[in-house]
């Protein structure tokens, strides 16, 4: 089977972690890593692995567009707005790991099938990737009136971009809870914990149902099934306790341990973003290959 060629745009922590994950993919072939600093860790490592490296940013890639059909953008929201237009004009499919939200929101375990033909999708936020599947899993059993998520991440795993623009996290995640999780109203809270050794990402999902819980076991089964689905691309995704029930209220506790590829294991918040984007690209690639076969 022919693999689909992909490139990573951005040679920072996220881009480098993506590179290590993509090396393992049986459907995607990483050909190129694009950065702007030839001395960055990411570009150095890419050269060692024998990938094509470009240190002149998007411009350099557009001179050799045949290198990839799918591009992962791990730069910044501001840069992505520019990249999105250029890559669309070049006919590339783009996975946006920044908060730019140019394309539709996707959580692979929930709504990837709706966006197989999109040319740009956005991965929402780490908190969204971790919690929206659970909101969706509850909502498919009983209508969720209100869902509130609390993401606690280690201080070390929150980069300067997230810190300087923390409202972007809370507001984007809340939107994702409503649009993809299908809660009538969503709210998100983020807490940074500086403890040493760093804590693993934890998320608590508090939900109010429209009515009293009808069948606790059905909700638990739905949540467990969803957790297994997320684990297929984020192996360190775990439910911490049996969900709590109280009237029309449900609380679910999860933790996300990273795969420890380039980023340390405690930063499950970063890992779930890179893992989810690889999962989406793999689904795209399968879709593309199946279309080609049909023709």
């Amino acid at each position, binding site marked *: 089977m022919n693999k689909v060629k992909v490139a990573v745009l951005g040679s920072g922590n996220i881009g480098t972690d993506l590179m290590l994950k993509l090396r393992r993919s049986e459907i995607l072939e990483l050909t190129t890593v694009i950065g702007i600093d030839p001395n960055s860790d990411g570009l150095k490592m890419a050269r060692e692995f024998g990938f094509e490296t470009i240190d002149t940013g998007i411009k350099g890639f557009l001179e050799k567009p045949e290198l990839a059909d799918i591009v992962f953008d791990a730069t910044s929201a501001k840069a992505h707005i520019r990249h999105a237009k250029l890559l669309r004009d070049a006919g590339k499919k783009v996975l946006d790991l920044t908060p730019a939200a140019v394309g539709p929101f996707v959580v692979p375990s929930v709504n990837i099938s709706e966006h197989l033909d999109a040319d740009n999708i956005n991965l929402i936020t780490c908190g969204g990737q971790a919690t929206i599947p659970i909101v969706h899993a509850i909502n498919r059993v009983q209508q969720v009136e209100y869902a509130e998520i609390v993401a606690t991440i280690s201080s070390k795993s929150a980069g300067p971009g997230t810190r300087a623009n923390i409202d972007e996290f809370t507001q984007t995640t809340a939107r994702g809870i409503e649009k993809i999780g299908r809660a009538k109203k969503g709210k998100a*809270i*983020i807490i940074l*914990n500086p403890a040493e050794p760093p804590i693993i990402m934890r998320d*608590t999902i508090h939900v109010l149902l429209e009515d009293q819980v009808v069948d606790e076991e059905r909700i638990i089964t739905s949540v467990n099934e969803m957790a297994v689905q997320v684990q297929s691309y984020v192996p360190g995704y775990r439910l911490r306790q049996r969900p709590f029930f109280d009237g029309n209220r449900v609380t679910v506790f999860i933790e996300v341990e990273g795969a420890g590829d380039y980023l340390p294991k405690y930063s499950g918040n970063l890992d779930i973003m890179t893992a989810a984007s690889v999962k989406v690209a793999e689904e795209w690639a399968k879709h593309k290959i199946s279309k080609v076969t049909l023709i």
Partner: protein
Amino acid sequence: MESHRDVLITEVALRDGSHAIRHQFTVDQVVAVAKGLDEANVPYIEVSHGDGLGGSSLQYGLSLTNEMELIEAAASVVKNAKIAVLLLPGIGTMPELKEAASLGAKMARIATHVTEADVSPQHISLAKELGLETVGFLMMSHMAPTAKLVEQAKLMESYGADTVYVVDSAGALLPYQVKERIRGLKDALTINVGFHAHNNLSLAMANTLAAIEEGSTRIDGSIRCLGAGAGNTQTEVLVSVLDKLGIQTGIDIYKMMDIAENIVAPILEKPQEITKDSLVLGYAGVYSSFLLHAQRASERFGIDSRDILIELGKRNVVGGQEDMILDVAAELANAK
């Protein structure tokens, strides 16, 4: 009424006290307290959900009354006092700060964990743009050494804060530690330095006096100790003590006593005292608003609330992590 003040007091009962009454403030209560405090010439009155703007949540407790209504009501009855609001980036957002300002808030206090000041630049700059007096509020100050606290306070100063507070959210600091921290900030900053105490170890007054001695000119108090945990420095007592020390607050002592006795005491579900649980908050260094949540988890899981709080202290849980209370209680119950 302009008066000379050596120390500027911010009354926090209508924000920090929200924790003690499970966020059940009514418009009538807030109006009565704010009006009284204004007449007693209190310069700043903070009104918000206990966890700041946007704090109304399943995680911290839903507000009975929308805080924006409370802010608007308070702002409409004060003549001289300024209404302050608290905002914790990660919980509250900039649109909420704008709304509060449009309803009459004049001061914004932007709070972060003591080591995480760099999540506050957007909110501090927005507050300044809105023309609000702006305070950086470094919570859980006992969890970092003075050098770290100074580094973080300087960040807030660089973002534009007019004042930085040492916030003893757990009521865990001892007087010598308060002195060291306030002195560190006074030496390093050019802006005002403030102090916010909790009385969990019965040290709120001693710590506040230590802070003032080292040059702190912005001080928080809660009337009748209406604050989280065992409450804060009791405002009416503080202004009396400062008066005896010859330190002017400009606040009318007699009026404060009357508000405490006649308006605030009836709001409290029970008198504020240092119970075994609030003592453990200070002893273990745990965020004061965990108190009622830990008591509920204790009932639910049949675990001593002190064991839950001590375990949370061991895990270095920070402000806002109320979900950890249930999680830890369930874990302790499973282990039994």
